[in-house]
């Protein structure tokens, strides 16, 4: 079982999974921000904003994530010269690739976050919004004080699904040279073709450990925090 000690010493598998976790958390945060804005646009009374929100969701949701990530590197950086890190830094390539991956992952998953929040808005009973309007709250205040707080609680389960998907999808970042878990697994398999089952087992187990607790946590949260009706 020397391959397991190699995983820790030679390949620094823990560092790879740490990169996976950073990628996931940063992208999740950014996706939550973008997704909330898009969801608010989609339920707003202004037609143009609705159209922009709908277009965003339909376009992004139907584009493969791999294309989005590859485009972030080859398109945005190589062709159009968009650099997200300090060019003079000696870790420029790594930083830039990592940030481009975060950008791609969050833009992609924001469309699913927006849909999750919209489904959360659907769980808020009509009477709530009517009551808010009756006491004179305008649209944005209705949203901020009455609808969105309940919508987020109602959207916890689908948001958890997006977070799990994002964790697994972060592996796609390897395509632009981010050394997260799948990239390290690939290298290990190339160097040790005799033990590919063990190598796959280690990395698969890593993702099971990362995703299963999130699923359990969000399911229990969604039961505990959902507004009882």
């Amino acid at each position: 079982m020397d391959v397991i000690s190699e995983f820790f010493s030679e390949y620094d598998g823990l560092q790879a999974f740490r990169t996976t976790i950073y990628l996931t958390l940063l992208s999740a945060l950014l996706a939550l921000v973008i997704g909330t804005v898009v969801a608010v646009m989609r339920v707003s009374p202004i037609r143009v904003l609705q159209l922009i929100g709908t277009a965003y969701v339909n376009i992004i949701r139907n584009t493969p994530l791999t294309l989005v990530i590859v485009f972030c590197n080859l398109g945005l950086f190589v062709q159009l010269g968009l650099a997200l890190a300090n060019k003079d830094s000696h870790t420029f390539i790594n930083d830039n690739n990592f940030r481009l991956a975060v950008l791609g992952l969050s833009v992609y998953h924001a469309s699913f976050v927006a849909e999750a929040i919209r489904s959360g808005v659907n769980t808020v009973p009509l009477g709530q919004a009517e009551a808010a309007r009756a006491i004179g709250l305008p649209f944005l205040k209705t949203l901020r004080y009455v609808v969105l707080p309940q919508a987020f609680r109602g959207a916890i389960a689908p948001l958890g699904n997006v977070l799990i998907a994002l964790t697994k999808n972060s592996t796609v970042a390897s395509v632009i040279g981010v050394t997260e878990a799948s990239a390290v697994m690939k290298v290990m398999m190339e160097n040790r073709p005799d033990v590919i089952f063990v190598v796959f087992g280690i990395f698969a187990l890593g993702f099971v450990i990362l995703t299963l607790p999130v699923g359990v946590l969000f399911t229990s949260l969604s039961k505990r925090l959902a507004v009882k009706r």
Partner: protein
Amino acid sequence: MSGTVLFDAPGPRAKRLYFGVGVVAVVAILLVLWFVLDRLNEKGQLTAAKWKPFLTGEIWTQYILPGLAGTLIAAAISVVLAMVVGVLLGVGRLSSQAWVRWPCGVLVEFFRAVPVLLMMLFTYALYAKYELFPPERYALAAVVTGLTLYNGSVVAELVRSGVHSLPKGQSEAAMAIGLTSGKSMRLVLLPQAITAMLPAIVGQLVVILKDTALGYIITYEELLRKAEQIGNYKSNLVPAFIVIGAIFIIINYLLTVVAQRVESLMRRRGRSAGGPLTADPVDQSTVAVVGQDTNN
């Protein structure tokens, strides 16, 4: 619609406000577009030479159509295999025998927790090591295996929730006329569950088609790989990505529309006692088990 409960029909003041915000939004969008186009122009991506190749037959017959074929072939094989694997695992998970139920449950949970890319990389190495396929087929086989295992487990969950959404009387009636639990599953429950799954299956096609692009990473010759090749050949990478992206978006959007049509058709006809199911559209994600309408 959820939106309509959030605001009143606008009065004159609100109308002016909405109009004003609308104008600002349009101006902002135009500014962003102008900025992007200006940037593209500055980098010489908008010249006719970069876009003309797409009007020639060569790019289509040598690159785009073969790439499209690669994408569609991988997706088609995966769909068929995923249905087979999914129905087997789903029925296995519902089995009355614990020694069938448990392994099927573990397999479904495992394949849903592990990233598709990890499975593709692993099976690619596996096929190469044991030479299970001709070398030029390793990539296709690995793409299909990864997609089949993941989407098979999604279908298995759909089968399970489909059967659970059927009224209890269905299996009781089957028992009452003397069917064994296996026969009642095969003759009574499964046909209705699969009808209920139909919209979700069509929706899942979008996920499968999108995920074929992961094949790019293991050198499978699909649309994204071809986009890169066009870009290298004609040095028009950005236009190539835009064209290929548009092809993906159009196909997937049409599939989404078909899925919605099938769903509304089934809602009206009520062919299954369980009612149509919907899968969570997030790829590589757990399935939201939804048997009933959400209150919208």
